């Protein structure tokens, strides 16, 4: 069995883990970053897309609000390439307590969240689909953030500084030597091969799965209460500003415009299993009703797909009832040396995507303590690869690029405008046969037809490039279609139903995918 040796092993390749890897690599530490699946395939890749301004927490959780606005300002500079400066509105709809608006404004003022009340007419001019019956509107610096782009930029940045990044490698055991964690055993989820990593410090950044990793290390009382949330992506941008209901945070109260779609969310339902992605029809219905309150006509607009993500809500079962069981805490950093007397092991969980950088900073500070070294954090000023110019992206980018190559760049995914050369380049770089990996990087198959027209093309191209056998190519195609189908069936009505029928004719009727040799 091969063995890798490193300063820091990071288990979990979500925003938090990738952020830790980037931070540690910037501080000159040697890093190995692993995930059981692809990077950002956990909660990070299933989140709502909002780079919080802090407004949402201004009344309920002032500390979270302060963290969000501080991180929001930092990330706009250092992670600009993955951020679209959409701006945000908090609107008082007829269903909201009108008294909350003043508390909201006061909360923003107290926590330093930039907030300006604007005229309803101005808001309606900017967002003509917004419910005309809103009574008050506040403008805040919300933004949307493309998590795949951001997480891969973090990983790439770390790699450029020597880090080794291993997606599809699950930690199956944590090695302990007395009071010390010394690393972990990994199993390649594709190859099945095992690998040992010896690490100075092991970071458990596995989010909603953190309790499993803690248990493997023999640590007690780390309890994560997974909270499942549902989101629905709509076919096009019904709003171009992040629109929040101005009320105490609740279900279905935000619409986030991100890339070519807008997403409504979300809910928070306790589940025992972080891998539980059940979609409950009544939740879909409730979400569409909520959309109707913000954008009248929402129910008649075309929904593309539904997915769920699982929040890691941390509860410390070990602490005395009141002392550290601090429910308003935005995130939890457990230094297991202080907590359990176990050296070389740190757990970071909870929090938000917006605060991943801060979480990483605190985590790597703890890592340095374990290593007995002093190294300063530079992630608040060092731009990520691609963000050197501090320029945020804008929606028209792909259209603009295509316009410059109208007749020489063949489009494979027409809806998301993915040209053939880009697809081939990415397939080569990622060296993967899983089209879902490519999807996350390029948005392949994420538009209106949900892969109906591009996936057979992409499979053919992959087949040619990678020298897959026909059976492997068939399998790749089938797997992708099954994944997409999971998200599509709960919103099969209206236009998306027609699309699904056409896609079905193509794949079942013309290509006979169900009868391809397996």
């Amino acid at each position: 069995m091969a063995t890798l040796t490193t300063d820091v092993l990071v288990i979990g390749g979500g925003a938090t883990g990738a952020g830790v890897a980037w931070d540690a690599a910037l501080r000159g530490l040697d890093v190995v970053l692993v995930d059981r699946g692809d990077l950002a395939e956990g909660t990070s890749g299933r989140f709502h897309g909002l780079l919080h301004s802090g407004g949402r927490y201004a009344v309920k959780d002032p500390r979270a609000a302060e963290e969000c606005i501080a991180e929001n300002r930092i990330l706009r500079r250092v992670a600009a390439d993955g951020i679209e400066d959409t701006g945000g509105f908090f609107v008082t709809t007829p269903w909201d307590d009108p008294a909350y608006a003043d508390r909201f404004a006061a909360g923003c003022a107290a926590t330093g969240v930039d907030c300006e009340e604007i005229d309803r007419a101005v808001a309606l001019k900017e967002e003509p689909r917004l419910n005309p019956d809103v009574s008050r509107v506040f403008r805040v610096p919300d933004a949307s953030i493309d998590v795949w782009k951001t997480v891969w930029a973090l990983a790439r940045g770390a790699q450029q500084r020597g880090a080794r990044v291993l997606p599809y490698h699950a930690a199956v055991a944590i090695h302990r030597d007395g009071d010390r964690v010394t690393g972990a055993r990994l199993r390649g989820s594709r190859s099945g091969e095992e690998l040992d990593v010896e690490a100075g410090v092991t970071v458990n950044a596995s989010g909603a799965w953190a309790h499993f990793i803690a248990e493997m290390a023999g640590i007690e009382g780390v309890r994560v209460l997974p909270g499942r949330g549902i989101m629905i992506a709509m076919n096009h941008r019904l709003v171009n500003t992040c629109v929040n209901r101005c009320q105490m945070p609740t279900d279905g109260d935000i619409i986030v415009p991100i890339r070519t779609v807008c997403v409504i969310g979300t809910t928070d339902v306790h589940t025992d299993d972080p891998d539980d992605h059940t979609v409950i029809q009544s939740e879909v219905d409730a979400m569409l009703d909520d959309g109707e309150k913000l954008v009248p006509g929402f129910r008649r607009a075309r929904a593309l797909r539904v997915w769920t993500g699982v929040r890691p809500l941390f509860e410390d079962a070990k602490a005395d009832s009141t002392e550290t069981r601090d429910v308003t805490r935005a995130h939890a950093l457990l230094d297991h040396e202080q907590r359990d007397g176990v050296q070389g092991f740190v757990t970071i969980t909870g929090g938000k995507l917006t605060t991943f950088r801060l979480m990483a900073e605190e985590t790597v500070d703890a890592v340095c303590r374990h290593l007995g070294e002093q190294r300063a954090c530079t992630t608040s000023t060092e731009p990520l690869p691609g963000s050197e110019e501090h320029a945020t992206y804008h929606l028209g980018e792909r259209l603009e690029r295509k316009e410059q190559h109208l007749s020489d760049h063949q489009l494979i995914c027409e809806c998301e405008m993915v040209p053939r050369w880009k697809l081939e380049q990415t397939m080569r770089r990622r060296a993967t046969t899983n089209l879902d990996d490519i999807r996350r990087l390029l948005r392949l198959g994420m538009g209106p037809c949900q892969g109906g027209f591009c996936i057979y093309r992409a499979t053919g191209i992959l087949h040619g490039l990678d020298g897959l056998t026909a059976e492997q190519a068939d399998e790749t195609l089938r797997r992708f279609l099954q994944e997409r189908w999971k998200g599509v069936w709960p919103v099969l009505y209206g236009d998306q139903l027609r699309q699904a029928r056409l896609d079905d004719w193509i794949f079942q009727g013309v290509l006979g995918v169900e009868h391809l040799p397996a």
Partner: protein
Amino acid sequence: MTAGGNVSAGMTGIDELLRGSLDHCVKCTICETQCPVSNVTPLFPGPKYAGPQAERYRVGGEPSVEWSVDYCSGCGICSMSCPQGVKIAEINAQARHKLKREHGIPLRDRLITRPTWLGRAGTPVAPLANFTLGFKPLRVLGEKTLGVHRNGPAPKFAGRRFSRWARGHSGPGTGRRIVYFHGCGTEYYEPWEGQKIVEILEHNGFRVEVPKQDCCGLPLQSSGLFDDARKVVLRLARALAPHVRDDPDTIIVGNATSCTLMLKREAREILGIEGDPDLKLVSERTYDICELLLELHDRGELKTDFRPVDEHIAYHAPCQQQGHYIGKPALELFALIPGLEVSEMNARCCGIAGTYGLKAEKYDIAMAVGADLFAQVEASGAGEVACDSETCRWQITHATGHKSAHPIDYLHRAYGL
């Protein structure tokens, strides 16, 4: 659900109707196979791309990033052929409008989109103006300075105006009232078409009123000059509405298919004018001349004292006429005329699309678009070509050398008027 779908309260209906209709696209590509422009040039990426696809990347506040949408001729074939009801051509028109607003509008587009100005300027000096238009060196200069193609099928000024004839004409003074909307083509270039229409209507027992009227704004609209187009079409609505307001039985009839389409549908669906009572009234009452005559015939009210016309003609239904969704009434009318042999052309488009084919950078595209039609005309062995739209007729004549006329010409001849 309506074809447009997604009409929401806070949204002006137009944006919803158009942008919202992109939700219906299932990517079937039928429109791409039908678009006459993208089939002949790589400069235009096609209706599916420029319409429902690109629209998902367009944000009000961001600058336009594509020039290619300016190559859409606005012929409307895509919207007509889309089985899902996506308002493709209309989405393109909006995008073109935004592009023009941001990047300024060439003087050329300001000039050739104002037939009234041109007509007023050209009519009194018709021989000179026609000489200028026919004189190569000056046309070359016009191409270089204005971007109007030297070979573009520019019409000849008639040198007299239809409205003047109408004022001097004394009709029967009795019969059912009807309002005639003649449009600029008839006014300045082909006044005889208007005379024939008046005579046909009078022959069928109508008392024809010709209100003072102006351009419908279509040329402005198709070049993306929406604000000006709105003003112009509303002015026309104000001129026509009083003539039909008090009498529910009076209708408006026109022979310029694209201009009547503007009144019927495009002022609302492309320019987004809503809630204007004059326009609404005019829009509901407007008929295409062939549509009206066929309806009269269906009700047994059309005189059929036709004499034989022993000719073989080709008939091309222009795109804009098909946009009325009334089928091809001219063909059914032709069938009433003894002796008239008609070859129906089944090419998509002649290419001109109003003023599109006059523009220097688009002339070759327009000629390529029409190539199919021109070849069919040649192959048919027909003499003249009948076509409902004047700019299409000019293009067909320019390209094939065959004489062309409005369908009512043949009815007029058959009536022996």
